């Protein structure tokens, strides 16, 4: 076998191997959050629409809390809009990492490798 073939298949094999491994790990991490995601999708079924809904996000850190708070409200609106509701809920449940500052009124209701499920009051401003 020529030198070029050996180098080609060695490098290509390593590149493909590491890429597939990294992508699979990424999917695996996301899969760890699937039970919560499923919960999220059933959010409107498991909670009364005018009281609250389960929404999700992952990989938050403390600096993004305010940012994701708005994102959570955004999802919430989408879920409600898709379901035909237009009322404002009282609370949101959000999937988050463990590094966010937990507000006094927030409550951890579920946790696994993917993160924590926090229930927090909707800021009515």
């Amino acid at each position, binding site marked *: 076998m020529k030198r070029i073939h050996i180098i*080609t298949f060695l490098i290509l094999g*390593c590149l493909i191997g590491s890429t597939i491994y*990294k*992508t699979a790990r*990424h999917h695996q991490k996301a899969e760890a959050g699937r039970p919560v995601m499923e919960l999220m999708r059933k959010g409107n079924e498991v909670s009364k629409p005018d009281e609250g809904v389960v929404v*999700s996000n992952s990989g938050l850190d403390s600096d993004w809390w305010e940012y994701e708070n708005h994102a959570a409200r955004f999802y919430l609106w989408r879920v409600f809009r898709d379901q035909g509701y237009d009322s404002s809920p009282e609370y949101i449940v959000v999937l988050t990492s463990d590094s966010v500052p937990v507000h006094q009124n927030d409550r951890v209701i579920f946790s696994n490798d993917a993160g924590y499920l926090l229930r927090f009051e909707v800021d009515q401003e």
Partner: protein
Amino acid sequence: MISIIPTSSLHRLVLFISIAVFLISAGWGLGEPWLIGNNGDEAYAGAQYHAISRHMLTHGPIRLHLAQLRMYHDIPENDLFAEGKFDGVWLRKRYGDQFWVSRLPFGALLHVASMAIIGDTEAAIRFVPYCATLLLIIIIYLLLRGRFGESPAVWSASIFALTPSTILNARLAGYELPCLLLVVAALLLYDRYREGLCGFSIVWFTCLAAGLMGWFGLYLVPIMIIESLRLCRSVDMHWRERLLLLLIPIVVVGLYALYLHSLGQPLGERLDYFWNARSVGAVQAIESEDGFSFWHFLHRTQKYFTNHVTVLPLLLAFGWVVQMLRHRSPELSLLLTFAVFGLLCYTVSMRAAYEHRYYVLWWSPFIACAGGFFVSRLCSSGQKGLE
């Protein structure tokens, strides 16, 4: 058995396999909302851009722009979640009055076009960076092949396609990949124009588009100035072409200044914001807060690179750097422009680079091409060099 494959077929096979792996890995679950994320951003950005594009399709970009600036300021809180009003309110809450200052409208227009063709889904939004990345891989291959030959072109495109950072970002809703596509095309075209391998107008329009695609295009301006001056000195061209070439960075900065002025924010304020909120100044602010040091930044950067670029492409790029220290090759000036672009993105937006893993993306063209040239030389060692 493998050894009977001729070199040209081997190159085509490598490129074909790399693109196939990219298409499958990046396309897997592309339409599944909220499941896969990079920094958690994909779930957020997908939903955000989806709503913006939906709103644009319904009301047009001007209406959304006006909505953001003026129309919904006095909206009653009860109407917060009402259809058609939430976008403006939410955008205002998130970005103040400056949504289009943070997110330029050109990327959003691509999303709108995609939704108009594919339909009203988040998958249509994610399809834009997916296609842009595929196009970028092809452009790296085609433009490098015409200038440096088949082998470095194939390896550069393949390493870029198989870098985990490329795959993760190709499915991340946003305008970063379309912006990177134009930036890389502009830098490659500057190089090709110097060698007389392409026309003037394509260089001019690509550079202008790259500069205006997103804020990261602005980091191209210093490189544009240097490249334009170098071209004026080294290429024999008409004075009108020289003038037009030197005008590109001026036109880009001028259009940004006009655009910001129309939104009520002078360019100076925007630069202040960059310094205080995103740049070195912001990192110094964290430093004074809680014992953060520059070593934290370097440590996290090293973690991002080893996780999202992985060790092999980094080693290959390092091999190229060592080779360059020993003797210079024709690709040096092109790859230096890639490196300068990555460095500018990383340092000017240091705070953002500290917080976002996806920033390694701006280094990907340099790492992929440097690795590609190194592998190409490795394969042909024993024979004469590439040139």
